[in-house]
């Protein structure tokens, strides 16, 4: 730990405030956790817009029955890349951006443990994103296989599939490097007195997430590599005619895929666990049980993957096991929700934008958790699997969950990062518009799924028409509301009012208590002493 402190600030003598590199070089060569965090966040937002445009193409086509705007192949490609880009391009990098900005400040370190690797982890992302976009223009168009890339449809797909596989390899490398950095920073670079059980919960959630990432990204890489060799090198992993098994792909994919949903959710829990206490002016209720609940969720997440495959054909014993294990996850998840509510209980609450988004998260994520519980029951899931009910479920946890939490985090820390305040009125508008349009878009999809509308179809029977029209209108509203967010952020950075030293009365982690606002270029050149 001492050694790390001695070395990290010294790696580049020329990196001090006085002569920090300027212009493009500052970003391309950056080894500064704050600049890299900023780049992650902007990258994430751009990908959010790209994925959002794809979502709007999907929803516009589904506004009415019949094929209006796009043809089925292109529609399938939009489904695929919307999912991939939102998951790997928008949500995951957003939370890595938060990790970069906050972890060194919250544990009292000067920077991340491996600043050069940090630079590389970020700069791997743009080429991967580019591959996903270029894939649209390959002969035959993008691969219309769904973000799950199930074999053997993926073996059939055109050359776009190879670019997609390559992009996933690169994204995986980036995630693993980012995780190594986070784990090392948290384990080795904490300030004296900052014991693990004193860390802000955000750091805990990232420590756990980083272990999940290191464990499962190689599994995904393996799955897509097997697809690649099936496609080009004559192997038959997923081809029954050659002795393989298409369902094997699903097992491998979901062994990655279920932990992946927690990779998305757990850092979101972390952000919310910082925001709710701050605006309740009261310490987080049940800190230790939060840590244990998060760790149990992470461990359980490795044991439930086949709940995505209840209809794929499994022995009934296996189905029973996966049902029980899945239901079990509801217990630690419930504990977290109860803790958040107990934190607010008898607090002194105020409702600035970060708190609003955190409450939106709490309310809607829990709703998504409940539909998840419904889906975990095998006989019910057999009815609902691969219908719009599932689409509604995962958007409640990923959009109203992870994305709302990211918004909460941005509004919360923007003053610390930029030294300027966002416009509270506009922030509230952004919240209410997002909340309303989100529900208009996705709540009705529960009904569609219950009534039997399959997902991933470009056209549908007439009895689904009304709810699809409503959902599409909601989607446009939601999309436009995000432009307001962009405006608010740019306005804050360029001409926001100067932020007070400590804009949030109840915020108590090191970045608020021990650092000036805006946070200096190097956080803690000498480690703070934590009592």
């Amino acid at each position, binding site marked *: 730990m001492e050694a790390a402190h001695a070395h990290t600030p010294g790696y580049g003598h020329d990196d001090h405030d006085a002569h920090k590199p300027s212009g493009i070089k500052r970003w391309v060569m950056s080894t500064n956790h704050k600049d890299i965090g900023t780049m992650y966040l902007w990258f994430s937002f751009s990908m959010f817009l790209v994925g959002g445009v794809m979502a709007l193409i999907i929803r516009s086509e589904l506004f009415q029955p019949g094929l209006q705007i796009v043809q089925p192949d292109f529609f399938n490609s939009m489904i695929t890349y919307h999912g991939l880009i939102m998951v790997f391009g928008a949500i995951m990098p957003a939370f890595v951006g938060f990790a970069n900005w906050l972890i060194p400040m919250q544990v009292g370190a000067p920077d991340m443990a491996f600043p050069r690797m940090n630079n590389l982890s970020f700069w791997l992302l743009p080429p991967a994103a580019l591959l996903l976009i270029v894939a649209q223009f390959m002969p035959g168009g993008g691969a219309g296989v769904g973000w799950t890339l199930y074999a*053997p449809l993926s073996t*059939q797909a055109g050359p776009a599939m190879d670019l997609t596989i390559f992009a996933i390899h690169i994204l995986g490398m980036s995630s693993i490097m980012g995780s190594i950095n986070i784990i090392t920073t948290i384990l080795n670079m904490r300030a004296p007195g900052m014991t693990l059980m004193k860390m802000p919960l955000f750091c805990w959630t990232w420590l756990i997430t980083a272990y999940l990432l290191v464990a499962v990204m190689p599994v995904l890489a393996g799955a897509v590599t097997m697809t690649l060799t099936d496609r080009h090198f004559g192997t038959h992993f997923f081809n029954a005619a050659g002795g393989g098994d298409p369902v094997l792909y699903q097992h491998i994919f979901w062994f990655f895929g279920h932990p992946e949903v927690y990779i998305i959710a757990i850092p979101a829990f972390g952000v919310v666990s910082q925001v709710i206490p701050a605006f309740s002016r009261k310490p987080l209720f049940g800190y230790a049980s939060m840590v244990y609940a998060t760790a149990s969720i992470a461990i359980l997440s490795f044991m439930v993957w086949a709940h995505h495959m209840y209809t794929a054909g499994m022995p009934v014993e296996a189905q029973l096991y996966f049902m029980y294990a899945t239901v079990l996850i509801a217990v630690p998840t419930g504990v977290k929700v109860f803790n958040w509510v107990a*934190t607010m209980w008898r607090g*002194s609450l105020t409702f600035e934008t970060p708190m609003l988004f955190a409450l939106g998260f709490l309310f809607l994520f*829990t709703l998504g958790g409940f539909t998840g519980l419904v889906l975990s029951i095998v006989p019910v899931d057999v009815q609902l699997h691969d219908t719009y009910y599932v689409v509604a479920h995962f958007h409640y946890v990923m959009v109203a969950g992870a994305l709302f939490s990211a918004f909460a985090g941005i509004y919360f820390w923007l003053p610390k990062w930029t030294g300027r305040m966002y416009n509270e009125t506009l922030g509230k508008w952004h919240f209410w518009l997002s909340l309303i349009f989100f529900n208009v878009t996705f709540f009705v999809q529960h009904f569609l799924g219950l009534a039997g509308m399959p997902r991933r179809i470009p056209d549908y029977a007439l009895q*689904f028409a009304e709810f699809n029209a409503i959902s599409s209108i909601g989607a446009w509203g939601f999309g436009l509301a995000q432009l307001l967010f962009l405006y608010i952020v740019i306005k804050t950075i360029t001409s926001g009012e100067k932020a007070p030293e400590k804009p949030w009365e109840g915020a108590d982690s090191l970045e608020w208590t021990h650092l000036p606002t805006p946070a200096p270029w190097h956080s803690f050149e000498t480690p703070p002493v934590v009592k």
Partner: protein
Amino acid sequence: MGIKGIWKWAVAGALYFWSLAAWAEYKLNLQTPQTLLGEKIYDLHTIITVICFVIFIGVFGFMFYAVFKHRKSVGHKAAQFHENIVVEVAWTLIPAAILVAMAVPATGTLIAMRDTSEPDLTIKATGYQWKWGYDYLKGEGEGISFYSTLSTPRAQIDGRDVAGRNANPNYLLEVDNHVVVPVGKKVRVLTTAADVLHAWYVPALAVKQDAVPGFIRDTWFKAEKAGIYRGQCAELCGKDHGFMPIVVEVMEQAQYTAWASAQQKKVAAAKVDPNKTWTPEELKAHGEKVYAQNCVACHQATGMGVPGAFPALSGSKVVNGPAADQIKLVLNGKQGTAMNAFKHLSDADLAGVITYTRNSWNNKVGDATTPADIKAARN
């Protein structure tokens, strides 16, 4: 536009949708189940949803209470407690107990659902890109075999006949040949696929089972009421995934018996004598039908394919080259592309379709491939 303007629009919008909803036949819940098992599943879903709803109201009752009563603006001062072992243990154990209570009925239903033993009728459903094939394997109607393809006119789908679409209550949920089964009989459905994954999904009968190429899965249902029940392929299977519905027609026993024997006679009549000698014209005419059934989805009726995705057969080097190569390609497919093996077609079908493609559009090879050629190529 000011706030007032926005409100006007909002009210107008709400009215518009309310008026739509008023005449719509939309549904808010699972389709009415037509099997006893389906009823069980329906009830299970209701119970779980209600339990979730009650917990939701309870938890967020507390949250909203705090939101209104414990806010700073009403002068509430923050307490500083942050632990309480008793409540923490309670809210771990009580949910666990509720979950066990949910799992018990679910277990019973699941075990019943998976019991496919002692069926009265066994039907194999094979998923193809993009239609279903059915073979009646065992029970009354044994030997019946047909394909079932979307029958909604293309013009309704691509918008040339919007009026027709709006007047079509079964838009996208209609097929040329229904799967017919008798009422009150246990029907076991074996699912498999010829190319990629599909899933056989009929909501009202409470069945959904993936169809996995190279493997057989099974599911079952026992319809309590005669009627026509409609479903769709539920696993993404490529371009026309949204266009391969499933229609199950449940008939009274007597009617079913009549249907089955008529079908069996048809099958017998249609059985082509394997020793029949075909004229090239007959082969081409037969091949046109086979082509329409099996190849148009990709290569198109014009033989021009879809640029970038499916090659044109018109003018193709393979089709205009030696017949033997084309036979091999169509029989075995091409690994790693959407061109799948068509081994499952009969010798006459394959001979026909190959003759047809070699002598249609811009292709004027002039030869005829006979069933005997196919037979030879199979070995």
